[in-house]
């Protein structure tokens, strides 16, 4: 049991280091795309440690407690995440719905803390974040329920093993329409550019993060890195067939995050009502079509 918890904490730490490095490399890639030199690859580490070294103000105990609760919730979620089909901290507990439930703890902690600061921009940002969540989760869940119906399991490791069996394609190829929906939902989860409504630095002054500075902002950055790790890993495990060894996982993870980041950097930003209408129009329609095709007609490539 203690060994499992240790492995889980190592997984969360691995996710933090991995996503922070890949985020830095991606800032460099975007810089080269815009004909710039770009920052150092470890710039994100410097940013986080600088924030942790600064002094910060408090806006009451809800503000401080919410950040810690959110960070704890996200680390607890990351502990359940399988990295490859062998490296799992809690075997048998890597159910898809555990991630859906536990990810909400982090989101709600952040919402509570941001509202506790009393800044109107923060309230607007939290409202937008929860609205975006409501929008992308419906098409995403329909696709994932299709996958669960096809494989007969909701455990991530089982879904991974199903795709790795010979004769089965990975679900991005087996369910191509659903794969596209999954990727669009991933962009929404990551808060990448067309769906970046709740950060929007020029519009609502970085939304929920508006009153954070110093140590609380540093913890929020760590939270963000770990939650990006969880979301991208979910996509890799559900749609790209997971990984049988760690090198394969790193390559798949890097490709997915880089493509999402590159799409983000050539796009403008939707308004919040456009995000909701977009997700309830095309991705929802495509997800339902994919579910009908796959489940009732059985046309799975």
């Amino acid at each position, binding site marked *: 049991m203690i060994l499992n918890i240790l492995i889980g904490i190592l997984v969360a730490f691995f996710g933090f280091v991995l996503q922070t490095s890949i985020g830095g490399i991606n*800032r460099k890639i975007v*810089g080269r795309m*815009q*004909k*710039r*030199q*770009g*920052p*150092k690859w470890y*710039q994100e580490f*410097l*940013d986080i*440690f*600088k924030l942790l*070294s*600064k*002094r*910060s*103000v408090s806006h009451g105990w809800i503000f401080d407690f919410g950040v810690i609760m959110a960070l704890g919730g996200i680390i607890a979620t990351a502990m359940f995440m399988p990295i490859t089909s062998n490296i799992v901290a809690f075997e048998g507990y890597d159910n898809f719905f555990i991630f859906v439930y536990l990810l909400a703890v982090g989101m709600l902690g952040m919402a509570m803390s941001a509202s506790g600061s*009393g*800044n*109107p921009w923060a309230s607007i940002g939290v409202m937008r974040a929860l609205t975006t969540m409501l929008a992308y989760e419906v098409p995403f869940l329909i696709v994932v329920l299709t996958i669960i119906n096809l494989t007969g399991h909701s455990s991530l490791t089982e879904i991974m093993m199903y795709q790795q069996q010979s004769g089965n394609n990975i679900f991005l190829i087996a369910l191509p329409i659903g794969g596209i929906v999954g990727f669009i939902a991933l962009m929404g989860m990551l808060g990448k550019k067309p769906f970046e409504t709740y950060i929007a*630095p*020029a519009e609502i*002054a*970085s939304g929920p*993060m*508006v*009153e*954070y*500075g*110093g140590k609380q*902002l540093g913890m929020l950055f760590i939270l963000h890195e770990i939650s990006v790790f969880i979301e991208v890993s979910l996509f890799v495990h559900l749609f790209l067939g997971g990984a049988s060894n760690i090198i394969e996982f790193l390559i798949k993870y890097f490709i997915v995050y880089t493509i999402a980041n590159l799409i983000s950097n050539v796009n403008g930003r939707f308004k919040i009502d456009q995000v909701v209408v977009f997700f309830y129009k095309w991705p929802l329609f495509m997800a339902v079509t994919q579910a009908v095709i796959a489940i009732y007609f059985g046309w799975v490539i």
Partner: protein
Amino acid sequence: MISTKYTVKQSLTKEEIDRKWWEVGDYFRRNSLWLLMYCTGCCAIELPPSMTSAYDMERLGMGPMATPRQADILLVSGYLSLKTLRRLVYTYEQMSEPKYVVALGSCPINGGIYHDSHAVINQLDQYIPVDTYVAGCMPNPESVLNGFVDLMEGIKNKTANGWKKYHEHNEWYKKNQKDVLGEVAIEDEFHQ
């Protein structure tokens, strides 16, 4: 002469340990400076070329930030009228420490071309401490970046300690602010 006998190593005092940790923090702070741009004057037009692909501020780890709480540098570009000075003081006091002020152009140094205006202050460092000046009307992007590199050197050599001066000589700064502005009070409308 150093004795070869075994001597107990002298443990560091608390001040020395604090200083060492502060130097470690300084390494992170000078490599990741986030700007809050207070762009009222014409010098603000020099910032886009120094941020984008021509001079690329991000390779030094710098970037714009949205709110005063998140930022490290308060970048004052250009002249300050009495109305904007009040907002500048509020903004400066909201920033989390350690914080630095960089003043662009000749207006914050001696008033520049507005030196005889009744509504413009002439010397910024009478009201808030300034760590680095970038002179010129307007300074070109090379000198803007040079000013930031100077600030980094200042953080390394512990000369950029304007925020400590603001604590030590707070009465003096407050008196100067009150002389030009009248009352300087932060109104908290939300909690009233």
